[in-house]
């Protein structure tokens, strides 16, 4: 099992956090400018691609995708997932301390819960061992079932 990550790998996880939340924020801001898209006018979605917020958000999400794939090449999906969620915490803290917005008690509890989740994962191995024979995506033969560890 791989327990320790290098500085470069931590930076990739940081990039995942920042680009995911900023990209999503710009995307929703752009779509609020475009307006409602009707089921019968789905081509409007392509017109949305000309919106500056959508373009910036999409570029950030491409950066997110690249760093996310890199992280998945050396870490489990369940290890990388909380990193993407921690981006929401960063946005909330920036809005509180940079933009001086009010954060309700429920948001502070949300920040605490996500931080705890990242803490749980940070102490676990980035990649858990598994047999290639038990991986349905690894090869054509599936001869052994991995029981895993349940609750």
């Amino acid at each position, binding site marked *: 099992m791989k327990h320790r990550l290098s500085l*470069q790998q931590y930076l990739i996880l940081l990039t995942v956090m920042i680009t995911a939340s900023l990209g*999503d924020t710009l*995307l*929703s801001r752009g*779509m609020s400018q*475009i*307006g*409602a*898209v009707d089921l019968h006018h*789905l081509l409007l*979605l392509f017109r*949305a691609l000309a919106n500056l917020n959508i373009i910036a958000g999409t570029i950030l*999400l491409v950066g997110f*995708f690249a760093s*996310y*794939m*890199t992280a*998945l*090449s*050396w870490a*489990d*999906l*369940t*290890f990388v*997932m*909380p990193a993407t*969620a921690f981006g*929401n*915490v960063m946005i*909330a803290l920036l809005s509180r301390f940079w933009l001086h917005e009010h954060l*309700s008690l*429920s*948001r502070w*509890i*949300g*920040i*605490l*819960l*996500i931080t*705890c*989740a*990242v803490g*749980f*994962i940070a*102490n*676990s191995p980035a990649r*858990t*061992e*598994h*047999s290639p024979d*038990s*991986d*349905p*995506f*690894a090869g054509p033969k599936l001869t052994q079932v*991995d029981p*895993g*560890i349940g*609750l």
Partner: protein
Amino acid sequence: MTHHTSTAVTWTAIACVALFAIAGEVLIAAAMRNLGDLDLIRAKSGLPGTIRAVLGSPLFLVGAFCMAFNYFAQLFLVSRVDLSLALPAVGSCTYVGNAIAAKYFLHENVDRRRWMAALFVCVGVYLLTK
């Protein structure tokens, strides 16, 4: 809910976005696991070699298709449904769904700590977007 979108359409759209996100992420995770550390591939074959290796993976291509569909479905969703409902609903379904899919399809060792983390993230995202 904005624009009088019916409850059935809202939750169907949320379920579609979440399902395509889960399928895309699991397939891409499987593809990356099969390829191995991208940093090592880049050190050996350079960036073009890394891109060729990634694009040559069928699992990645199917996963990327799911993510692309997810992208447009998400644009549709946020244009029809309040962000305060869409974001936590999709986020929560995706986090829990990913943990289940990672255990049963990727055979990751999702122990009690990782289940707790998935649930904490799920509730945390809901509270953050309230």
